[in-house]
């Protein structure tokens, strides 16, 4: 392992993380819910009366953030190296896996770990391990 010191951005990572934490705090202290993006989005796949608008609003907020940012400043770098076939496969895995697992990086990784939920800590260890393993296979075994 070698740390890429030129790419490491500790200050913006901590500040951005704290802003994400503030969003989680806002959501739970006002709406009383977990800010888990996969669950909020997934709930729209089987819409129930009275359970739609808050989900749509949260999703719209996430989509609106880069739009508002773009009005004031240039968006930060966005680089997607994966091609379309890999992205579609990845999206399907994320769409199915997060629903069976009951959460993703936000619901388990941020909210669950913040609550010290053993379930969420187990889920976070699992998806992190699978993420590390997948990148290792793709970049260091297949791409060799």
């Amino acid at each position: 392992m070698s740390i890429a010191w030129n790419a490491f951005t500790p200050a913006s990572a901590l500040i951005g993380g704290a802003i994400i934490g503030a969003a989680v705090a806002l959501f739970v202290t006002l709406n009383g819910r977990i800010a888990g993006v996969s669950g909020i989005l997934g709930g729209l796949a089987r819409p129930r009366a009275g359970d739609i608008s808050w989900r749509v609003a949260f999703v719209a907020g996430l989509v609106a953030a880069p739009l508002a940012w773009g009005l004031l400043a240039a968006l930060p770098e966005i680089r997607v190296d994966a091609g379309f076939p890999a992205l579609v496969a990845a999206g399907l895995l994320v769409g199915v896996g997060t629903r069976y697992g009951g959460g993703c990086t936000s619901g388990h990784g941020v909210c669950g770990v913040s609550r010290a939920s053993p379930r969420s800590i187990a889920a976070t260890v699992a998806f992190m391990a699978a993420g590390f393993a997948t990148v290792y296979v793709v970049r260091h075994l297949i791409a060799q």
Partner: protein
Amino acid sequence: MRSYVLYTAASFAAGFVFGLGLLVAGMANPAKVLAFLDLAGAWDPSLALVMAGAVAVGAVAFAFIKKRSHTLLGAPVLLPNPRRIDRRLILGSLVFGVGWGLAGICPGPALVLAGAGSAKGLAFLAAVIAGNGVFEFFEKRAAAGPARMQSS
């Protein structure tokens, strides 16, 4: 009616702030996320600090709300409390992790990428929604299965 409007507005605000946080943190950039997941390459530890910052703030909020039955807006506090660590949780999370490792994108950043007008982000998001549909299909079938057997 007033509270309904307030909840919806609060929901939008939370999603918006969440999206800004992802952008500031660099987590809307899939290449940076993959640089964190690439332990054997030129490793960028930034994502760990994003989690640390988010958890530090989140923990205070959850400690505050845990003792209350209603939120500051008067909404009921709906925190899930299942404690079982089962096969469904672990297998689902492993499948999610494989998808995350392939693209460097998870659901939050997918929505930010869509808002940024990234065609690749939109393709990924469409696939996530299709994946949700696949999940709902099998859930419905699993739920209908035992009921059918009972009625026959």
